[in-house]
């Protein structure tokens, strides 16, 4: 019953887990080679506008890439927090999803325990994913403030915050679904009682 979905979720869990591991290794390598780069959402019009940055980076159409030549330990921590949390949370999402689906296909969908797991997964999407992108926005803002010269070019954490709306809507949907499954679990027990 859950088949095309379970296979896709398992595949994505494998891909994100491997990607996360590679990302961590890359981060480690970068911290050893003493270079730290990040991309702010602030778009600077021309190359001359890079003036406010002490360490000139490259402009992208969607933001500005800034590199720190000699990052301190604290910069490294911020650099890690700037992109690792959402990678971790995405891998966690697929792991939870695979565990949920495997449980449901083993024990049955219409059970109270599946409903509980669905509700917990819904809360995870609703809270954990927006929280991780907020942490990343705060870290990026912190890094940006350490590199920018003029206060006028400082960015606001809220404009850097990339709110994952789909996670909020899907999370709410799962909370509703948990209620539906709970009611169908009651229905199933009733049915088994009458048989």
């Amino acid at each position, binding site marked *: 019953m859950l088949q095309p979905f379970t296979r896709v979720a398992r595949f994505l869990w494998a891909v994100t887990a491997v990607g996360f591991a590679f990302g961590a290794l890359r981060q480690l390598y970068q911290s050893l080679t003493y270079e730290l780069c990040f991309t702010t959402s602030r778009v600077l019009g021309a190359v001359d506008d890079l003036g406010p940055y002490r360490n000139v980076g490259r402009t992208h159409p969607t933001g500005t890439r800034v590199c720190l030549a000699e990052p301190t330990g604290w910069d490294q921590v911020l650099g890690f927090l700037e992109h690792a949390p959402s990678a971790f949370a995405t891998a966690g999402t697929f792991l939870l999803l695979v565990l949920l689906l495997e449980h449901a296909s083993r024990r049955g*969908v219409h059970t109270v325990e599946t409903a509980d797991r669905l509700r917990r997964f819904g809360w995870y999407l609703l809270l954990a994913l927006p929280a991780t992108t907020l942490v990343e926005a705060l870290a990026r803002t912190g890094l940006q403030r350490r590199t920018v010269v003029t206060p006028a070019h400082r960015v606001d954490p809220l404009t850097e915050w990339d709110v994952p709306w789909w996670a909020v809507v*899907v999370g*709410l949907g799962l909370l509703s679904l948990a209620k*539906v499954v709970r*009611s*169908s679990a009651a229905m199933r027990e009733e*049915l088994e009682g*009458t048989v």
Partner: protein
Amino acid sequence: MSSTRGNQVQPLLGVVTAITGIAVFTLVSGLFVTVLDALRKPVCVRDSWRETCIEGPTGGERALSLLLHTPTAVVHVGALLLLLVLLVRAQRLGPHNVHTAADVRGYGLYLLIALPVSTLVEALARWLLAPYDTFSFVGDWDFPWWAVLTGLGLLSLAKVLDAGAEMRAELEATV
């Protein structure tokens, strides 16, 4: 029974109603501004690599520039409206129902197909207006993974609801 049915879709229905209201208003005003901009302003394209502006665009280029942002906006608002319809119907009929299962399946297919297609159309429009490279629109395609995953999840959910509907029919037959 009917009161518990009302509660089942509740945290979601309220939020979706509010978001849909805001989204429809934003879409209508946004479309108005987009059409005005397409008629008067120079056409600017921002892809993954650079930003290009076409001075003195032709009528065809102006028409194509309408496809730079509108497809995903329309499809997103459509997704919200469909979700609203689905939730209202589910609230009235109850979730364990063949019609609700069919609605969920249709919604899953919509997310699975319409959202990737809309982002592909936008990538193609950017590529046609300012080609960066042969087939560079593939690299510029912002693929909506979440929509595909959620769509697949909804197809599975439709099967679960079908099973629930069967169970309910059985239960009603035995009573």
